[in-house]
């Protein structure tokens, strides 16, 4: 995955950088293989985006961010639409009252445990639901495996 594709709120670790004129500068500010980066937020129209590298907030355009190959860290909070099938814990819902109410009926609220199935449907306590991509992207989740590790600490 490229850094430009990493969802907002996620934590990634840098794998490698493509060579371009700007690459030495990216390395100098600390964007190097093995370094973890937090995707903070995006400007209007999705470009540029803010990233947290070590303790500095850096603004990068999508064109530069796409030079950077990254891996999503397991413990990062991501929109459900980006998630691979598996067990997740709901961390938050980015939406208004209506959406919250509608999802609550399906058994999806903050803290609830859900499973993303291979066919992109969601299994909750109340059954299996087809939610649709738009609403999936409003649900931010964290992998339940990562959550357990956090709890053990």
């Amino acid at each position, binding site marked *: 995955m490229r850094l430009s594709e990493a969802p907002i709120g996620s934590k990634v670790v840098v794998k*490698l*950088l493509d*060579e371009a*004129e*700007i*690459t*030495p*500068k*990216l*390395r*100098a*500010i*600390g964007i*190097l*293989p*093995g*370094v973890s980066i937090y995707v*903070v*937020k*995006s*400007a*209007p*129209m*999705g*470009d*540029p985006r*803010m990233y947290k*590298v*070590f*303790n*500095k*907030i*850096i*603004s*990068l*355009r999508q*064109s*530069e961010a796409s030079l950077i190959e990254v891996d999503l860290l397991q413990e990062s909070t991501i929109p459900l639409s980006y998630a691979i099938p598996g067990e997740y814990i709901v961390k938050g819902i980015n939406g208004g009252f209506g959406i919250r109410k509608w999802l609550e009926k399906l058994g999806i609220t903050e803290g609830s445990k859900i499973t993303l199935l291979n066919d992109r449907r969601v299994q909750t306590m109340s059954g299996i639901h087809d939610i649709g991509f738009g609403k999936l992207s409003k649900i931010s989740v964290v992998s339940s495996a990562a959550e357990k590790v956090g709890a053990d600490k």
Partner: protein
Amino acid sequence: MVITVGLIGNPNVGKTSLFNKLVGARQYVANWPGVTVTRIEGATSFKDYTLHIVDLPGTYSLAATSIDEKVARDYLLYSPPNVTVVVIDSMSPEQGIFLLLEAFELGLNVIAVFNAIDEAKRSGIKIDKSSLEKFLRVPVVLTSAHTGEGIDELKEKIVASFKKSTRPLMIDYGKETEDKIREIEEYVEETFNKRFTAIKIVEGDKYARAFLKKDCPNDVLESIPQEIRTSIPLTKYEYITNAVQLSIQRVDETLTVTEALDHVLTHKYIGIPIFLSLMYLAFNFTFKVSEPLVGLLEFFFERIADFVGSETIISSLISQGIINGVGSVLAFVPSIFTLFFALGIMEESGYLPRIAFLVDKLMYSLRLTGRSFMTLLLGFGCNVSTVMAARGLADERERVTTILVSPFVSCSARIPVYLLIVSIAFPNHKAEAFFAIYALSLLLTALSSRIVNKVILKGQSVPLVMELPRYRFPKLSNVLTYVWNRGKHFLEKAGTIIFAASIVIWALTYFPGRGDVDNSFVSMLGKFLQPLFAPLGFSWQIVSALIFGGVAKEVIVSSLSQFYGNTSNIHFDPVIGATLMTFILGYMPCFGTLAAIKSETNSSKYTLFAIFYSLGISYMLSMVVYTIGRWII
């Protein structure tokens, strides 16, 4: 004994504040990266020594990617100071320590300064100084340019390390990389530190290649695999991470003030509306606060002029030429200072780079970057500053574009002219008219940059990597320094160029009719050229004033007030007012700006372009405003 001291560090870590504290100077420090584009020097005495301190532009590494970074690097390469102080941000030290490690490789005599220690303490970060000294093997000083903590200790350490230089740490990059470095070292010319140059070449710095011997075979360079290239910064950062982990105790990440503010101020949808509202508030504030003072000053100057009278040549020269001419401009000083006060708060708080972040996408479509947007914003003070500050832009094409469009950013010299027109033509909508002209100024700048890029400079957009500094609470003394540094230029001009121009205009108004304006050289000139401006509806007085305004825009105010006797005799309808403001916004860069454009681009072609393009576009635009205005009213 003189000790030369170089200050380097990442952008916006407080080098200039530290410099001010060290030498007691008053350099203005903006809360955004790239304030220092050339080096600033100052001296202070300490014990038996004179410390000659050089503040260098901020940089992340000693590779040079823009002119200002090159200033920093070339200074360190060609005239290494006795002591180099690397300024590191205590709150985010990693990137600063990286620069420190590079300075070691250059063989410099280094002191590490961890600045903003007061902020670090407040947020609960604990820094173990002796542990850092052990890891970095150089003297470490914890300072705060804000409170003055550690400044004396820094001076002590500078003297101490001048007497006895330290042997800094050398990083070992592992066998493969070290072999490559040694191989390239063979081909590096005998200039300065060979290892440094070789390391830079391995990293892929194209400037460093200039120091290779002519007989260097090409395949030595071509065959550097990416692992080796990356191993250099990677080894440094591994060392840094380890050192930081063991020496600096950080608190758990909670929502900081900066994050909370950013959530609103750089919001996807409401970020830009907030920016526009803040600008509107700033203008409103300016009018509300300064209006009574401006009125008082105008009244005061008019009274003196009346008192002197204008019966003889001498009394007319004094009352009309000097008091009325210069006074009509000086009366607007309170407005200018209040506007800068409002803008100073925005800049000081760290909000400006956020604006750059918000509008970057827009700037991108104009082939500029958010960085050049900030450079252009400097032009609200004086366009000459933009032209000079454009040195900080990495890309030559972007630099020239920024220089050429800079005159469209409405500088402070135009403020008195707008204020005069606004109070005559739009007495009930002053702030709105002001907001409109500034919005138009931004639009015209954007449009021009598009045209410049289409017509004379063709090319790709440049990358933008920009740091967004922490927000900080504006400190009154800093805001006042900002106001003074921006505003004093205006006062200087009033005493020199505007004073001289007022006397010349007085002479042209007084003769040959002996005080009868309708029968003077000015009226002849104005009436002769007036047909050219008939499509814009300008009177001959306006035409003459515009001609004199080419020297400096404020002169328009003093000309008009002389032609009409004083400012209260001038009347325009709103359409003429709007047309005139539009025309003045762009019609020609003043002499000072033209001289700066000439010297910074080193090209008469660009200078001529700046004159004729701006005349053409503002003429057309004013004609549109006039035609539509007449059609409505």
